[in-house]
């Protein structure tokens, strides 16, 4: 599948924005100015971007606790995301959601989700809306290898087939559910293989390769849009960091992580693949722009005002 230069630049820009955002959060988190849990998406960029480059605002995605990458890939505002993670009033959720609950329904982003397996049932709901109101949109869930074994996910997959919903289940297999390896915790050893049992097609792709993800997603999404029903994509990938910022980080050795950063970096792989098609200069410029953008987002988030305490009582119907 041939992409235009603009499409390639757009994809790279999204991936680079995610990387900058996450690397910067890794640093900012050490200052103690960010509360709560942070789960970084560095290393998995090609999955979110490879998929979301095929989507529009009328398509809805659900995400996971490791959701920043999906948000950025789906078009959420980076300044508002950063302000949210800093708990500020200018945040996308006015500081009420935080890292694990960033959402922007106008962009078709139905929320990062603190519940493993929480996304797929919601994604089939979005697909039901699209089908019933004939919007032309689809629903799509990003779920990890951990969530792939969840009962919620299985129920949603079955329902999607029964009702022939326009929905895609993306399984990002980064090898670990928290600190437990998928070789241990996923009984079937192959997540994509489970789809057949539900009666839907599946494809397993190299999730470090933007183009592999893009093409598989393109096919599945077009299929869903044509009313041919749901499908599964398993994308194997790696997280550069541990489960959450500040965890013991013992499940992989330094050498393993160095190897991944050197040989499995989706951005490096992308740059190699587009050599001759897109100039290094243009890509370098994106690198600079992303850095400046994230830098500005952090500065503004730090300077932004906290929510008024009265906000505690808004956006819910009653307060006793």
């Amino acid at each position, binding site marked *: 599948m041939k992409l235009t230069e603009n499409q390639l630049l757009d994809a790279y820009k999204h991936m680079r924005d995610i990387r900058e955002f996450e690397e910067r959060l890794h640093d900012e988190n050490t200052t103690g100015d960010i509360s709560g849990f942070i789960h970084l998406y560095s290393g998995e960029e090609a999955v979110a971007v490879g998929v979301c480059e095929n989507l529009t605002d009328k398509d809805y995605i659900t995400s996971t606790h490791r959701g920043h990458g999906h948000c950025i890939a789906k078009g959420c505002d980076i300044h508002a995301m950063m302000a949210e993670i800093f708990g500020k009033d200018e945040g996308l959720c006015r500081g009420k959601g935080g890292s694990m609950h960033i959402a*922007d*329904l106008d962009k078709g982003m139905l929320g990062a989700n603190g519940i493993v397996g929480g996304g797929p049932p919601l994604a089939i709901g979005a697909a*039901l809306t699209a089908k019933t109101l004939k*919007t032309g949109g689809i629903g799509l869930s990003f779920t990890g290898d951990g969530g792939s074994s969840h009962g919620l996910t299985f129920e949603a997959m079955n*329902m999607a087939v029964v009702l022939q919903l326009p929905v895609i289940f993306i399984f990002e297999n980064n090898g670990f559910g928290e600190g437990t390896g998928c070789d241990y915790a996923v009984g079937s050893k192959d997540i994509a293989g489970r789809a057949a049992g539900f009666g839907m097609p599946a494809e397993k792709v190299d999730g470090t390769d933007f183009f592999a993800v893009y093409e598989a997603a393109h096919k599945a999404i077009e299929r869903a849009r044509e009313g041919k029903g749901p499908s599964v994509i398993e994308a194997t990938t790696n997280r550069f960091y541990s489960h959450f910022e500040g965890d013991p980080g013992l499940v992989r050795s330094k050498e393993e992580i160095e190897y991944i950063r050197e040989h499995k970096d989706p951005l490096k792989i992308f740059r190699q693949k587009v050599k001759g098609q897109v100039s290094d200069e243009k890509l370098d410029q994106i690198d600079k722009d992303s850095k400046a953008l994230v830098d500005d987002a952090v500065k503004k988030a730090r300077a932004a005002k906290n929510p008024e305490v009265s906000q505690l009582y808004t956006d819910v119907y009653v307060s006793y």
Partner: protein
Amino acid sequence: MSKKSYRNAIKEAIEFEMRRDPTVVVIGEDVRGGHGAKNTEENKLEGFGGVLGVTKGLWTEFGSERVIDTPITESAIIGMTAGAAATGLRPIADLMFMDFYGVCYDMLYNQAAKFRYMFGGKAKAPMVVRGMIGAGFSAAAQHSQSPYHIFASTPGLKVVVPSSPYDAKGLLTQSIRDDDPVVFCEHKLLYDITGEVPDDDYTIPFGVANYTRQGTDVTIIALSLMVHRANEVADKLANEGISVEVVDPRTISPLDEEGILESVASTGRVVIVDESAARCGFAHDVAALIAQKGFYSLKAPIELVTPPHTPVPFSNVLEQAWLPSAERIEIAVRKVLEV
């Protein structure tokens, strides 16, 4: 106005809203019934129309696209409902028995209930979860409970527990039009009671208690089936010159605190009847409210009439002993009058 059953009042609310608003859909197992079965498919029959026939006729009028039969998988039912509600539909999920919340509560508790708040007011989940509550049907421990107190303790959920056909129609119409997730609790022993119900559509606002009996000596606060038992006791005691007021909050989240406290202020004696739980239930919540905000009106300790802290038993003898009875309510009323 005409006489209608509680069951038909509920169906009317749904059917009127489905005609009025094309985004209203019904989702659940056997809301039609008979998908995938030869006889029902060939003859275009509704196999069930809801397990106890509440939604019978809707599929014939609206078809499979809006009356959506699902597998018997409650997490997917409620999750799909939540996702659809957040993206433009106004779905009504049928959980069948409220007891089944145990297998799917994440989709209400952690998802739908929290969308609006957690996403900073930029999302909503206009959905209704209908389900049956209540003992007295010999349905045993997993099909007889009334867990509305669990729902009411969850911020973001509205909880409706109607006791009459009139309330059922008006409150369900309000529930469907409401922009927040509503849990609508239907007592299975009330489906066949009848009452005057307007033929047109109407709404009853949430958080407004109904005084089903007016009185001056004792206040009984009760919900759902228990309202009928309280009324029975009030009518009986009226013959002895004891004047009992019965307050039916109708919705417990929001709760009409003023409506309750006003009655307590006028009688000073309170009995709370509640089918939910012997501990941490609706009765205990209202008792705490009265102790905190109505203490100086009280002339006697508050009496609670609840089931024992046991699962619901099967045997009819045991089940009748489990359910708060008119006799127990009467004893409680006499007790608060002794002081």
